[in-house]
């Protein structure tokens, strides 16, 4: 039997029970019952919600879940929901401690340098990971990152993402107006008009060219 079919997490609002990815429903019920009994006195009559991860429940299964909670504890069940509705998917990934069980579309991991100010002309940042700037990157400033570059401000300087050769790296800015963009070994310069974009954009490599697209709600960079 999978010992880790569910996990508990206490928050200010109460308790959340996570149903882990990959566990089957009977495992969830038995693990849940066991853990509830163990912790019944600890949790008392706190409010609880159940996070189902990616799974869909039949009406019957839902009933079974509710019965398990009420039979084994005094917890007050507030909601049963799936991750898509509420908790971010990363939660279940983290909980399992391994990303492989999850679709990795749109996921990227790695260390990052956070710069909480504007980079000015003549300032140069080289970092072997992602770089996140909370500010502008002015003309004459340059960032070279082995990972992605995210600018929460206007990027007017030079940005080199994937500087160690990673063509899947990307550059994102609230206003993307760089002097020059480089991703891995692909280089592009600014168009010769100087209109600032009015929405966040990201730059990525496709067919050995750097393309720029607006950031929309659903995308895979």
């Amino acid at each position, binding site marked *: 039997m999978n010992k880790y079919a569910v996990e508990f997490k206490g928050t200010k609002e109460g308790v959340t029970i996570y149903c882990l990815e990959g566990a089957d429903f009977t495992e969830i019920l038995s693990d849940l019952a066991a853990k509830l009994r163990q912790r019944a006195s600890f949790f008392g009559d706190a409010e609880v919600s159940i996070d189902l991860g990616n799974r869909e429940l039949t009406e019957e299964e839902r009933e079974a879940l509710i019965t398990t909670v009420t039979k084994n504890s005094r917890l007050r069940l507030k909601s049963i929901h799936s991750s898509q509705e509420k908790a971010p998917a990363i939660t279940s990934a983290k909980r399992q401690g391994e990303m492989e069980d999850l679709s990795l579309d749109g996921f990227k991991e790695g260390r990052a340098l956070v710069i909480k100010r504007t980079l*000015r002309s003549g300032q140069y940042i080289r970092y072997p990971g992602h770089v996140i700037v909370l500010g502008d990157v*002015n003309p*004459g400033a340059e960032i070279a990152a082995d990972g992605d570059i995210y600018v929460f401000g206007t990027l007017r300087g030079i940005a080199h993402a994937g500087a160690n050769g990673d063509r899947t790296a990307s550059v994102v800015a609230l206003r993307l107006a760089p002097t020059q963009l480089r991703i891995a070994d692909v280089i592009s310069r600014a168009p010769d008009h100087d209109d600032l974009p009015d929405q966040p954009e990201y730059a990525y490599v496709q067919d050995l060219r750097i393309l720029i697209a607006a950031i929309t709600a659903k995308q895979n960079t």
Partner: protein
Amino acid sequence: MGEVIVITSGKGGVGKTTTTANLGVGLALAQKKVVLIDADIGLRNLDVVMGLENRIVYDLVDVVEGRCRVKQALIRDKRYDNLFLLPAAQTRDKNAVSPEQMKKLCEELKQEFDFVLVDCPAGIEQGFRNAIAGADRALIVTTPEVSAVRDADRIIGLLEAAEIKSFRLVINRLRPEMVKRGDMLDIDDILEILAIELIGVIPDDEKIIISTNRGEQVVTNANDSPAGKAYLNIAQRLLGETVPFLDLYQNQSFFSRLKRLIGLGG
């Protein structure tokens, strides 16, 4: 105790010396005790602009090398009793002074003067390092040109790195009619890049050239020189007063926008 303000720009010829001289006189007019230090060693000209060239006996290098006391090197202005100049050496180069020496000198002058204004040389090398060494605040001068703004940005980065936390921007030589035609950077464009507080905008004004050639400053003729008026306003803002910005554009909507940007009322 007074404060030390360095006037700097990065790019050459944008109006550092003109600004130092005019603000010096402007603050002296407000009865403050002011000393101007010409830190542009080897290329001095604050003395010429102030019309005091023929009175120089000792200079900055003499002071730091101990050949005279500070008091002996200070030249009193012709018109204002409370305004002094510490001239640069003309025959030496910037390496004749170290940042530590400048810092000590500024500390000393600050005891006696309300304002110590340091006229910084162009560039970002030793001369710049010396000029900012003792500064509490900085005024960054730029003109509405892309290259000057770029250099100002570089300077701001260096000032931040040098832990000078307070700096404000002077935009010099603005030509409103060129901005209107779209041929010159607008104040908004400059502020958007530099993102620092504006302390004043000086219009391009031929009276500046006429008066500096005479060793006089336009700020004394604020009534018939727009640049003089603008400098007087900056001097007052340095003294902590709130002075509305000049309407160089005769255009209300532009300036209400500007004021919102720099956080002055309305």
